[in-house]
């Protein structure tokens, strides 16, 4: 591993399914990312508003959640210039999301494809900031 702690990118996982969050944490930590999990869109927004240091490089998010669902979270992000460009990967057990043009993964997700998708997001953000 050539990564240092400072270089590890943060991925925010938003899903009310605790086991799914836990498994994603293990997967992504193994793949070299830092992981923060939240169980609703509302909690995720609070996190994004509260702690600027914890700006995730990507978000992996379920659509159906209590409190604030994925669609509402996306709509809220769209209203804020700072969050508008946040790369979001949608994972859902309930078929294709309607009216959302984003990376979409059907649960149960294909792990290697998700990792490839995430790597692509990270490399394009590196290019963008370079």
């Amino acid at each position, binding site marked *: 591993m050539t990564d240092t702690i400072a270089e590890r990118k943060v991925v925010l996982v938003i899903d009310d399914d605790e086991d799914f969050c836990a498994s994603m944490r293990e*997967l992504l930590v193994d793949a070299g990312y830092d992981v923060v999990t939240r169980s609703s869109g509302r909690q995720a927004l609070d996190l994004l508003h509260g702690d600027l240091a914890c700006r995730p490089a990507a978000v992996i998010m379920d659509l159906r959640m209590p409190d604030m669902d994925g669609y509402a979270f996306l709509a809220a992000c769209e209203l804020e210039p700072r969050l508008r460009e946040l790369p979001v990967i949608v994972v859902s057990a309930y078929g294709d999301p309607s009216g959302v043009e984003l990376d979409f993964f059907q649960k149960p997700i294909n792990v290697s494809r998700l990792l490839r998708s995430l790597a692509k997001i990270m490399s394009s953000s590196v290019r963008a900031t370079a």
Partner: protein
Amino acid sequence: MQVSSSTRSLVDSDHLGPGGPEILIVDADPDSRAGLRELVEPLAHAIDVGSLENALPVGQTRERAAILIDLDLQPPDCDGLQILARLRESSTGRDVPALFLSHSSDPLAERRGDELGALGYLRKPVDPAALRAKLEVLLTLYQRGVELRRITAEARAKDVHMGMLGHDLRNPLSAILVSARIVLMRDMLTPEDRTSVARIARNAERMAALIRDLLDYTRGQSAGGIPIVRQPAHMGEICAAMIEDIALLHPERPIRMSASGKLRGSWDRGRVEQAISNLISNALTHGTGAVNLVVEGRRGEVAISVHNEGAPIPEDQLPHLFDPFSRGETSRLGLGLGLFIVREILRAHGGTVEVTTSVDHGTTFTTRWPRAVRSTRELET
């Protein structure tokens, strides 16, 4: 005029539930109406609209078992034929069986009545036995219609519940599969443990595939096919990535692939994966030894064939191989939806799937994926 206690007027008809059959009486003559009510009441709720102006608003409130209309009604804008014609324009009156009643025979009026779907004409004064006989037949048909609608609604509700269950199962399955994959990818297992974890993942994948096929089947039935979204893709890359995933779960079975020709085109990647993984899964289940994929770029299309050695598919199964639920009752391997879904995915892409099977050469499924020809289904959507 004496009104028997069992008759119901327009006013209290509003309190009737939709449960019991109702027969609408449209007649301008109060005495005639009273007579009809008494004949109808033993069989069904008589809904006497009273004045003719009420015929349409009351007739349109809900579907009745039958409507009795006086054909002698004379007002210029409100005769019996016009009332039925107007009722036919509403969803509740479109199919309601209508019987006309009149003092005399008027061939022209009856012909117009026939065009409006009138079931018959009774002379006034009405012969009670004749009316009762007709009403009994209509009520029997009505009850069967009600029963059929109830059964259809229940079947739909079951489909919806099955769909919800299928979707809900994907959440726990997702946690199982991701966790199993993590352990396999960490590569820290003893060979024995690795075999066990691969078995967990393999079977969770099978469950996921069964759920996906079942949901696609029920959705396809209601939506008229499997929807696809074409995007630029490379068949060689799609197949190589899939084989890598599947091979991890079947360490004991070699899965080989060869690719040639131009492999770029426009397909629904997820659906290609679903179709080919169904074929590979079949080859692993029913065949022996290695599974061979040949991906071949041809003029206008890419062909992907999946081959396995082993006993050929019995000849009597071949004609129905791609039909849904086609497996024999003795099979314990699933619903038999896999190949049906493969065919539907190919059909949505404007492609085909064929099979050859023999003792000497094993079994080969060949799928042909047109690169960009837009299928009928895509053009429709």
